[in-house]
């Protein structure tokens, strides 16, 4: 049996047991499908359906995004299949009181990396073995060496450029934005009942796809994710205009790590940098 097959069998078996014993009402997982570029999510409510569950390198998506959706919440206790990196998003949701730990069951899968290349986040991944899960399936995987190297390579590449080059670069990139908000929709941490762009009195961010509003939107999005974004890369993946959104997120994550020695989602108990302060923070640049 191939590793994928054995992992799929474990997943199916685990999910079936949970469902049949009534531990959970719903299992959210991946259903690897022949011919598809990525394995779509599947919502399993019966033990029989559990056979559809599986895991392979096409399981790119971060399923934790579904955990706070009203429809999922209505169904009752939910199990979700998470990769190590997805657990970090779950941790943020937990620390921000979006979900309660007792309402969910985490089925971790050991992951050797996803995507075709594989994805950048997988080359610098340091969490292939999921932490804090209720169940973990899959064969042991190797952790890439020197994972911290190049963690923020996209941001660093831009930082090396001059201010003008950066301005020019981003002007061009953000100009493309069509304000489809796919980046927001796919983000597991963009859970606001009412997004700021939808607040009309006042309308802080212009809604039309005009460069002026585009800058505001992306700045606001980045700022709202500062100290929260776990770098799952879904925003960049889903962007129809291929704007390198990941670089902006990386910039903020790098700042958090450099300044506050903080990486988001490492535990559900952590305190995000922007919810606190230190009297020792730098006064650099302040007049």
């Amino acid at each position: 049996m191939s590793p994928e097959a054995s992992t799929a069998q474990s997943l199916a078996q685990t999910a079936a047991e949970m469902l049949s014993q009534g531990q959970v009402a719903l299992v959210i997982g991946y259903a690897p499908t022949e011919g598809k570029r990525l394995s779509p999510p599947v919502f399993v409510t019966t033990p029989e359906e559990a056979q559809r569950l599986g895991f392979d390198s096409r399981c790119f998506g971060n399923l934790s995004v579904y955990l706070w959706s009203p429809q999922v919440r209505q169904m009752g206790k939910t199990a979700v299949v998470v990769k190590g990196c997805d657990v970090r998003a779950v941790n943020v949701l937990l620390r921000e009181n979006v979900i309660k730990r007792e309402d969910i069951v985490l089925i971790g899968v050991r992951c050797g990396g996803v995507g075709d290349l594989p994805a950048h986040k997988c080359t610098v991944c340091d969490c292939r073995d999921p932490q804090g899960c209720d169940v973990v399936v899959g064969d042991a995987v190797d952790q890439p060496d020197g994972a911290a190297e190049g963690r923020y390579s996209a941001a660093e590449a831009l930082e090396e450029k001059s201010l003008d080059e950066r301005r020019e670069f981003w002007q061009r990139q953000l100009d493309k934005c069509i304000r489809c908000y796919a980046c927001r929709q796919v983000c597991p941490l963009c859970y606001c009942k009412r997004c700021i762009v939808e607040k009309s009195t006042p309308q802080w961010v212009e809604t039309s796809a005009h460069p002026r509003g585009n800058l505001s939107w992306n700045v606001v999005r980045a700022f709202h994710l500062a100290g929260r974004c776990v770098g799952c890369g879904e925003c960049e993946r889903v962007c129809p205009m291929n704007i390198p959104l990941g670089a902006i997120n990386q910039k903020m994550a790098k700042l958090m790590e450099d300044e506050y020695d903080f990486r988001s989602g490492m535990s559900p108990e952590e305190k995000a940098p922007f919810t606190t302060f230190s009297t020792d923070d730098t006064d650099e640049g302040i007049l």
Partner: protein
Amino acid sequence: MINLTIDNQQIEAEEGKTLLAAATLAGIDIPTLCYHPAVPSAGACRICVVEITGGGQPGLVPACAYPVQEGLEIQTESERVVASRRMTLALMLARSPGATIIQEMAQEYGAEPVPMDKGDDDCIMCGLCVRVCQDVIGQSAVCFEGRGHERKITTPYDKQSEVCLGCGACAFICPTGAIDPADYCPHPLETIPNDFNCGLDTRTPIHIPFPQAVPNKPLIDRENCIHFITGGCEACKQICPADAIDFDMTDEYVTEKVGAIVVATGYELFNPDVYAEYGYGRYPDVVTSIEFERMVSASGPTTGELVRPSTGKPPKTVVFLQCIGSRREQGGLPYCSKICCMYTAKHAILYKHKVHDGQAFVFYMDVRSGGKNYEQFVRRVIKEQMATYLRGRVAKIFPSDGKLIVRGADTLSGTQVEIAAEMVVLAPAMVPAAGIRNLAQTLRIGYDEHGFLLEAHPKLRPVETNTAGVFLAGACHSPKDIPDSVAQASAAASKVLGLISHQTLTREPTIGIVDEETCNACFECEGACAYGAIGPKELKDRKGEVTAVVAYINEGLCQGCGACAVTCRSKSIEVQGYRDDQLFAAINATGR
């Protein structure tokens, strides 16, 4: 209670008390030498002998060590007693002819000099030093050595004592002043400078901080108290007739809920030793104005006698220097300290009162005498030649032949002057009390670069601060003289009364409000709130079932800073008066 008769007087005394204690209580004076109330009695010197004439074995007994007994009849000045004391004193005088107290007592008792072998030892072997060291201090640094007439008091092996604390209790308690602790103490004798007198004299560990202190009661300085160093002593406890000493008392934080706070922390003086040219700290006769003030004060270290610290003799020439640190942009403080011109004029008058033939000089920059009758006061000093006013600065002060040469400029005559002064009085700038910045930060009120506290408005709200309920009075706010301080304090008091005389308190309306519809209940706002004003609120439907939990801002606690609003990503918090739409409009209005 025990009944006895002392000098034909019926007396009641507590069991266990000595005859001396009983007599003292009854107002009967018995002389003592080797007795001290804080030290166990020894009955050694025999000065306090009294005669038992009835109710017990007749004879002479030491009052300090003899316990009261039922029915005793005591005579404290009988012929026999006086004869004994007379002989004791004659013997002590023979041993210690130089001891003043013995001379005095011998004279009092008419102890005639008898032909005896004379000694020259001031020590009368009363042993108070030994007992105080052992029984009170608990160290036993000094002890008796030898026997009989060869007995002496010394440290083990006559060497400097390792256990001596240098407390000086032995020297203090010695009735004849025969002890110099330096002889056996390896440490310099610890003296405690009297802060109130600017360290010009010393005080004991138990002290009343200053005359007219409120409450006017002594306190124990733990750092210097032998009890807190060795666990021994407790002499004060033994002596205190009111049993008021409690070593277990500790500093405590007093928490009071108040409706208003008046800050009146006063001022300190700028330390003039940064100006090497004036020699403050190097030359003992260069003093600050506050030191001068204490020197001429009747409650000061010299009880009002003005003397030079170097010689102890009255200074015949005094030079007053104005603006030490004040009005000095470079290396000083830019502001005018306001009070120095007036008090220097006063000091000149005081000086003339103390030293009639003395000469005073005042170096000034400008005489600032704004205030009711102030100018007239200064004019009087100048006119009546109580001081010679010289407009100019002093360049250097240096000692010469026991005097201080003050070299300065008289800009009005355009000449260089040199005055051979016996004392120089500096008028340093007024600075706020130390620790004022911490206090200001605690009270959340503003202060300037010098630490003076900020009023809410320099013209319209001069006693209020930006924090409601906190008011200012006196020199914590700016240099002020007494009338100004009293006026501001009165104003602050009026403000407080105005505030607390209302039934209800009016608060600022600018507080945060949560939009319960959009609140994500992430409670990151809770962490940003400095006042603990934010907590969860359950939203219920008509049936009373909880439908959601959202953040809630307690309007009584909220101060309206808006930190929560910034933290809220969904913009679900608005601060009244600084609502988003208002600010949006304001920002828009800045645009072209």
